[in-house]
């Protein structure tokens, strides 16, 4: 390696964080500029909370004020939607249009693409949850201390991890249309069955039996446990469940990713 080249290589390394920052910027801009996408993922959780949660924020749920209880439920719904739609469906759509293929022909490490996308999902997730919490605090007067806010948001971000892995699998499972359909088929029924819209104990018996096996249930339980309204199993228990789901979804995603690389004529 000559001096000129090693200098250039060092330059490239130094530029890497700036490059990653730009990749993240591009990812965020892509999501925010599609109004339907933005409304669906960013505004919808707040909208649903306003319609279904607002009338009963001052009730009591599991021994705490219902409004606070709902911050974990609707928050879990929010991060799930971001991971499935802004992340998963977006991957399927970019794969379908041949953007991924073009990127794979550049010197970009494929990992950068996923890191940028995950960073975008975290940022959009934070924006979505923040909007929900601002609305809850300012309009619905749900009282929470700053440390509770921060703790809850942190737990929701952790709870987003398995859904990012699920989104990744969705992204490589099929085409753009089928990914969107699948995401919808997963998002709403899972939210409902996990007691995110109506508390679990008010759901039909069958659903109550299924709920403890669903990843979304464990995300919400993280928050409920933190707020003192959990099922008593402790946070570690729910984290183990979520870690298990992450491993399974990630393994499926890797299998489909590999399959995708070998597929299609060219």
């Amino acid at each position, binding site marked *: 390696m000559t001096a*000129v080249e090693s200098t250039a290589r060092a330059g490239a390394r130094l530029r890497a964080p700036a490059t990653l920052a730009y*990749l993240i910027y591009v990812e965020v801009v892509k999501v925010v500029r599609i109004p339907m996408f933005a409304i669906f993922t960013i505004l919808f959780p707040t909208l649903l909370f306003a319609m279904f949660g607002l009338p009963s924020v001052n009730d009591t749920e599991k021994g705490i004020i219902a409004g606070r209880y709902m911050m974990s439920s609707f928050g879990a719904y929010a991060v799930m939607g971001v991971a499935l739609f802004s992340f998963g469906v977006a991957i399927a759509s970019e794969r379908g249009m041949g*953007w991924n293929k073009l990127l794979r022909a550049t010197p970009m490490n*494929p990992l950068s693409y996923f890191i940028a996308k995950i960073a975008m999902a975290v940022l959009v997730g934070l924006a979505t949850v923040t909007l929900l919490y601002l609305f809850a605090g300012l309009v619905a007067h749900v009282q929470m201390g700053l440390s509770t806010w921060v703790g809850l948001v942190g737990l929701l971000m952790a709870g987003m991890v398995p859904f990012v892995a699920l989104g990744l699998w969705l992204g490589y499972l099929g085409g753009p249309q089928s990914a969107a359909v699948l995401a919808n088929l997963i998002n709403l029924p899972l939210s409902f069955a996990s007691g995110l819209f109506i508390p679990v104990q008010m759901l039909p018996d069958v659903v109550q039996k299924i709920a403890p096996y669903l990843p979304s249930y464990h995300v919400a339980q993280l928050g409920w446990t933190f707020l003192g309204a959990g099922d008593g199993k402790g946070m570690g228990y729910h984290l183990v469940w979520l870690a298990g789901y992450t491993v399974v979804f990630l393994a499926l995603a890797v299998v489909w990713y590999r399959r995708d690389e070998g597929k299609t004529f*060219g």
Partner: protein
Amino acid sequence: MSQRFGRRPTVELHDVTKDFGKVRALDGVSLVVEPGETVAVLGPNGAGKTTAISIMLGLRAPTSGRALLYGQNPRDPASRRHAGVMLQDSGIPPSLKVREAVEMFRRLYERPMSVEAALGAAGLGEKANVKVDSLSGGQRQRLYFALAIVGNPHVLFLDEPTVGLDVESRRGFWDRIEEMVEEGKTLVLTTHYLEEADELADRIVVIDHGKIIAEGSPAAIKATVGGKTVRFRSSGVREAYLRDLPGVRRASVSGDSVEMYTMEPEADLYRMFRDGIEVSELEVVGVGLEEAFVALTSNRKEVAA
């Protein structure tokens, strides 16, 4: 530094085979492209051209054999740091602005040119702040070109780069490519427009059914086929008669204008004159790349059938 790359072939395919399920898309292809060379890969649809380029770029792994890009495994992203590409069936997210897409690609390379320079060279300077979804087909093709060159690559891989362009844009596009070739860039391209390959390429590689069936300079390719194209005007001559002439491989008559492709023009014309056929505006020309290509690939089909 350029010497370092000068010693390495830009592209090496060593006995590369690629299967898609039961279909063999490439069958024992060996090909070396040296720096500064201009190589056109030609072949009918489905011959394996795009598969060959995909393997050169590491988009796909060969089923057997070995591919190298500047002496490195092309599956390693770092091997592509001197390569710019235009691919078929690729897309750019519609909500991105032109400038953003080019800036993003610029940041993936070590010694890129400025966004303005790339857009200028692509003739897209005025569209920098426009979203991709409002570009016309031709403008989109220019954007792909800007993405291919913004990294200041040593080699350009162009897979059917002028598909969807009108004649004028095509001309302009090839002018720009010619400039880059004159600067010393290596070029690997596939195209349907054989006259363009004829003008631009030092070397032509003809692929059919996944195999290289001919390789050489455009002149050499034409010479392997031999024969001449004979055109003239004559009333009352029938195609069947022409096809029976000993040297004729193909003949077509429309109205009074006749075109035939023959291996023995002198003998065939002598016979026609002897048979009393009157001819005007006679023209005998060397075979074009188009004819050579058709002859090469159709021969093979006959062998296969």
